[in-house]
């Protein structure tokens, strides 16, 4: 039982990284990115392409993807998504949903439907033996560490820095923030750029831990979304706990019956939604 929970928490680390970008983009500009999962997959494939097509060493390829994701996110928000924001959620939903279809089919055309993974030089199979039958993987522990570090930095960025202050300002009242001299279009673009760095980290780690294929995106989006809602809005630590709860729920489900693991995760999400629609740890910034 303890093993299941520990595995669930490790899985939750990965889900945290899936969800942080979503949490950030929704928090700053109320934008629901339905292509979140596909961008995660795209990040993984960008690294794979860097390694296998351009022949870069693994470390260099990974290091190149992060700034590329930052730039891509900035431009996407500034020149495409900013035009879809508004009281009506439809334009941003249709545009991101369209992007999701475009990315899936583009990756399918370029890389075929085969699942692929990022070569880690044996890292993915290393582990410490805790007891005779139970060992902890090195890579999942690294992922969890990255997830906690990312959550802490994001929380720090939001509460302690000038950038974070501008994020909160445009989130609370865009017009007043603009009167105070902030350019919301640029603030939004910066938020999405940061979200895309997190998304590409998530994609790379997903590609190292298991495999990615072009059609994986929607499921990853659902996990990210469930983590955000379970955790409650307004706090990145909430998102982290939501991801942990989802990870543990799925592991318990998988243990009971492999066919019901994801189903059980969805069910826990729906129960939280009914019992506590504001999420378990909401912290709306006043």
């Amino acid at each position, binding site marked *: 039982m303890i093993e299941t929970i520990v595995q669930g928490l490790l899985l939750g680390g990965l889900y945290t990284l899936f969800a942080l970008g979503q949490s950030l983009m929704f928090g700053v500009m109320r934008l629901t990115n339905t292509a979140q999962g596909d961008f995660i997959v795209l990040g993984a494939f960008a690294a794979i392409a860097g390694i296998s097509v351009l022949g870069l060493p693994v470390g260099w390829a990974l290091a190149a993807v992060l700034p590329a994701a930052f730039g891509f996110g900035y431009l996407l928000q500034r020149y*495409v998504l900013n035009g879809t924001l508004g009281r009506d959620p439809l334009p941003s939903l249709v545009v991101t949903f369209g992007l999701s279809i475009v990315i899936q089919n583009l990756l399918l055309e370029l890389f075929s439907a085969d699942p692929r993974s990022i070569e880690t030089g044996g890292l993915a199979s290393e582990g410490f033996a805790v007891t005779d039958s139970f060992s902890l993987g090195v890579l999942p522990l690294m992922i969890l560490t990255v997830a906690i570090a990312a959550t802490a930095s994001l929380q720090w960025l939001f509460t302690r820095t000038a950038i974070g202050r501008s994020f909160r300002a445009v989130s609370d009242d865009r017009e007043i923030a603009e009167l105070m001299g902030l350019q919301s279009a640029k603030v939004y673009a910066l938020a999405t750029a940061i979200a895309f760095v997190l998304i590409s980290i998530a994609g790379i780690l997903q590609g190292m831990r298991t495999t990615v294929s072009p059609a994986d995106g929607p499921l990853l989006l659902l996990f990210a979304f469930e983590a955000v809602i379970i955790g409650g809005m307004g706090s990145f630590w909430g998102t982290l706990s939501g991801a942990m709860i989802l990870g543990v729920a799925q592991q318990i489900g998988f243990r009971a019956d492999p066919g019901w693991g994801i189903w059980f995760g969805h069910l826990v999400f729906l129960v939280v939604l*009914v019992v506590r629609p504001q999420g378990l740890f909401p912290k709306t910034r006043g």
Partner: protein
Amino acid sequence: MQNTQVIVERGGRHGGAALVAGGALIAIAASLPFWGESSWMREFVQIACYFIFAMMWNLMAGYGGMVSIGQQAFFGIGGYVMLALGNFADINPFVAIPIGALVAGLVALPVSYVAFRLQGGYFAIGTWVISEVFRLSISNISAVGGGSGTTLTALRGIEKATRESVTYWMALVCVVASVALVYLFLRSKRGLALLAIRDNEVAAESQGIPVRRMKLAVYAVAAFGAGLAGALYFVGNLRISPDAAFSVNWTAFAIFMVVIGGLGRIEGPLVGAILFWALNKFLSDYGTWYLLGLGMLAILVTIFFKQGLWGYAQSRWGWTLFPTQRRLIENT
């Protein structure tokens, strides 16, 4: 205070003519099994399902302000209920089509209790999760073939030509009935309330419109329609599987049709469905590039051409096939 007398005008310049033309078109369409080829009928049934589904999505998004990515839940429920009634309860599948739709509409009531806790973009993804729950649940039921699906055996005794004609007529009736249903609903007092909610929810509530109840009504009607499309589709298809029945592609294509045709107008999904049919017919051989193009087109139209094709025609030439708007004209 000066009172201005106004009269309410409904309908456009071409409304009457459109009605006559529509009636004639339906009459011609109804006689198709006597002179047409059976492949035309199959194609019509398919496009009818897409169209009904898209129209219901339009009702929710364009009038109810609820953007859902989970309408395939009700499409699948309609299909599976029809199949279960036909295969296990010996009910004629054609009779089971409306029952399947009804069950989908009823299932929407408890589902709304969960889904309505989310708004805007989160409502969209939340409904998608709910539809995944249905898909995974059905995948684990071995009586209907689990994940690999099953075949509708109840129609086995019926001759192929008869089956195809009846399916075709059924589809035609469903299309006409759902257009009429949506049209009359939107022209009624409730339709006016719905438009008020779409334009401003808070203002509508302050004028005494029961916003929550209206949204629930729209959600249930849309689920009924999606279930109707699903039941009809799988009577035509004879084979069902959870991945096909609860595929998010259904909603993706509905969004495409509505956005291209024009959101919030009955003509929108009609134009969108015809365009989608034509694109599908001539370009679907291109596979991934075709889907990629559909995605791009939806993005471009949303950004640069918000009203869609029919919206453009309406604002440019004043075309209206289904006059649901009311115009106030000063009486002098």
